[in-house]
């Protein structure tokens, strides 16, 4: 409101020169608005990224430099053989994630993914508690025999391997 209040629009009241000036003025306003919108979006994005992007940790990363309790992080590694324990309520599961050097205990309440087995790779979203246990909100295991979560690519997957050679010989 009021942007053009003292210069009513319309050819009747203005000369050609004035019209041109106004056209330029309007274009400039639009460009400025567009820049402002983009800047605003970037600032909002930067602010949200700072608070909400979650970093990926392996058990060794956590051992080296423990993230704050309650901070959203992503944990990835292998499920240790013999570590999966189902809770008495039937829906809580405890297990240990390792990456060959360090170990990290995890608890999760929910239905485990289809290919969640001992020795398989797993990526978990969640947070650490004060006691150093990782509480997972979601678990991602391998979807199928060809898929590896991208965070696990660098990790040596020795131990129980999934057969990838289901291809035709």
């Amino acid at each position, binding site marked *: 409101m009021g942007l053009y209040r003292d210069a009513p*629009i319309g050819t009747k009241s203005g000369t050609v020169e004035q019209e041109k000036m106004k056209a330029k003025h309007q274009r400039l306003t639009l460009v400025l608005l*567009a820049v402002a919108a983009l800047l605003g979006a970037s600032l*909002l*994005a930067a602010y949200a*990224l700072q608070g909400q992007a*979650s970093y990926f940790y392996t058990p060794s990363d956590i051992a080296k430099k423990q993230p704050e309790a309650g901070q959203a992080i992503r944990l990835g590694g292998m499920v240790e053989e013999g570590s999966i324990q189902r809770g008495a309520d039937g829906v809580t599961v405890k297990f240990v994630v390792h990456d060959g050097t360090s170990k990290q205990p995890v608890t999760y309440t929910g239905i485990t993914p289809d290919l969640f087995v001992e020795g398989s790779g797993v990526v978990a979203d969640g947070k650490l508690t004060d006691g150093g246990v990782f509480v997972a909100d*979601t678990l991602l295991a391998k*979807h*199928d025999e060809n898929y590896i979560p991208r965070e696990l690519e660098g990790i040596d997957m020795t131990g129980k391997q999934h057969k990838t050679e289901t291809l035709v010989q």
Partner: protein
Amino acid sequence: MIAEAGLIALWLAAALAFLQFALCTIGLTKGQDQFFAAVRPVAIAQGVLVTVSFLLLVWLFIRSDMSVQLVVSNSVSMKPLIYKISGTWGNHEGSMLLWVAILGVAGAAIGVFERTLKLRTLVTTLAAQAFISIGFYAYLLIASNPFERSFPVPEDGQGLNPLLQDIGLALHPPTLYIGYVGLSIAFSFAVGAMINRDVGPDFAKAMRPWVLGAWVFLTLGITAGSYWAYYELGWGGWWFWDPVENASLMPWLAATALLHSVTVLATRDGLRAWTLMLAVVAFSMSMIGTFLVRSGVLTSVHAFAVDPERGSFILALLAIYIGGAMALFALRVGTVKEGSQFEPISREGSLVANNLLLSAILGIVFIGTLYPLVVEGFTGEMISVGAPYFNLATGPVALILVAIMAAGPLLRWRRDKAKALLNRISIPVFLTAAALFALVLFTTTMSVLSLLGLSLAAGIAVASFAPLWKRNLRRTPMHTYGMILAHFGVAVALVGMASESSFTEEKLVAATPGDEVTVNDWKVKLHAIEPMAGPNWTALEARVTAQYANGTNYEITPQNRMFPAAQTQTSEAALLTRWNGQLYVVLGDSDEQGRWQLRIWWKPFVTMIWLGGVLIALGGLLAMVGRLRRAVRQRKQREYAEEWI
């Protein structure tokens, strides 16, 4: 022989694309207008040939021809016919062929149907379309030949990823691709208009139905994809802000902005440069999305670096097409005169706000999607950006956007008074305030975003019909009804989203057969677990009854399926739809005591999310048909008048 025929058809189509491009450019630059007559037929022949090539690949999948490598890796002879067909595009090469086929058909469609564009602009448009096609034909023929033979010929194939064996895959990718690639038409139109300095209302009127058509398909594709993920993944969520989803959302945001700005250009000859820019950006987003999904860069930046051929190829194509169009835009934008003016409070003003806010959302989604790749590429650190970021950053902007959506159609073109607007919109504003008051009073668990979303939805639902106030309903044009329907659809979807995120009830239990669980108004009872066999899977099926508060009994059967060919399990959620929501039951694992995990959600009004999406698409369809009918009628009148002069 079929494979070879398909490949030949593809080569021929590529050659025709070359010819089309050559005819257009020679005709345009050397003033050889007689070449123009050949352009339409060539464009049509190219579309036909590439379609033939694609259909031949489908035929190979139907026949389970194991002498073709792509069939071997992605199909298996023991599989229902529908999944053999849909398996054609459930893989990299096949989906790229579908992509290119739609690109060719889009060019042919311009050749057949476009009657309003000026000849030189039309020819340049078809040249641009051919130029895009050439790049993607080269990509297919050089880097991902779908017709490659397998040697030695195996007895059977390896099967399709079981998650993809669903009717969703049969519908979702083709719909989405038609939308995605249909935007290439807007892109080519913009190139044609920029080169010929032919930007104005007539150009906008010619472009508008194409934009609407692509947008309708894109909307349907995203809606279908969302529902598919919802019931197939078994996580109960309907939007995961997954990069692949964002890749389809970004073109949609740009196309939505475009179809609003193109209206300003058509009706008021305003926002010329901006509309051109959006047309370029929309298809650029489609190509960037294709790059993200198809190059493997999402799986890992490293995987991309190890096998860079395909990724680099698409990246080079992106650089050429987007860079070229942007350069053309920079060169020509100075000569595009800004059209007529308007005051901030006017229909144009509200549409500018719509465009800016949609662009802001697009920017936020773009940054969030690419940020992890950039961070990983430069520092090697891996981060994930998920729902918390996207909801926090896009939510407030989206709410302002929908509020303006309620007001915009009630404003006059060119200039209006704030007071007059307040008069017209007083009832929706009052409704929103009342809803907000009631929700704050009676609910405790709602997040701020859902609270505002639900209250706004109440106002928008009414405001979307306000343009009909005091109008002759029979003489109101069809495209106005289209707008009303689409805007109402946004309100419907908003109710679904807010309700799902605020009022969903969830129970996770370990149940032995005979146990009963209460979730909201439902009593869910597990009766038995039984083995089952399907065409290419075996399953454990839970027999479950659900009793609603009014005493009605329903039977549902969630399953856990094993696919031996792929050694994969999927869980098939059981969904029970009532008018007021869905009961969503997933069967989990069993433990030593013979208990089975059951995860049960009651999601009130969740179906309104997709109903809203369908309404939005229907609105677009109505607007498109209305505009086309009017254009045909006007052309007939003109021809009739000319006959009598």
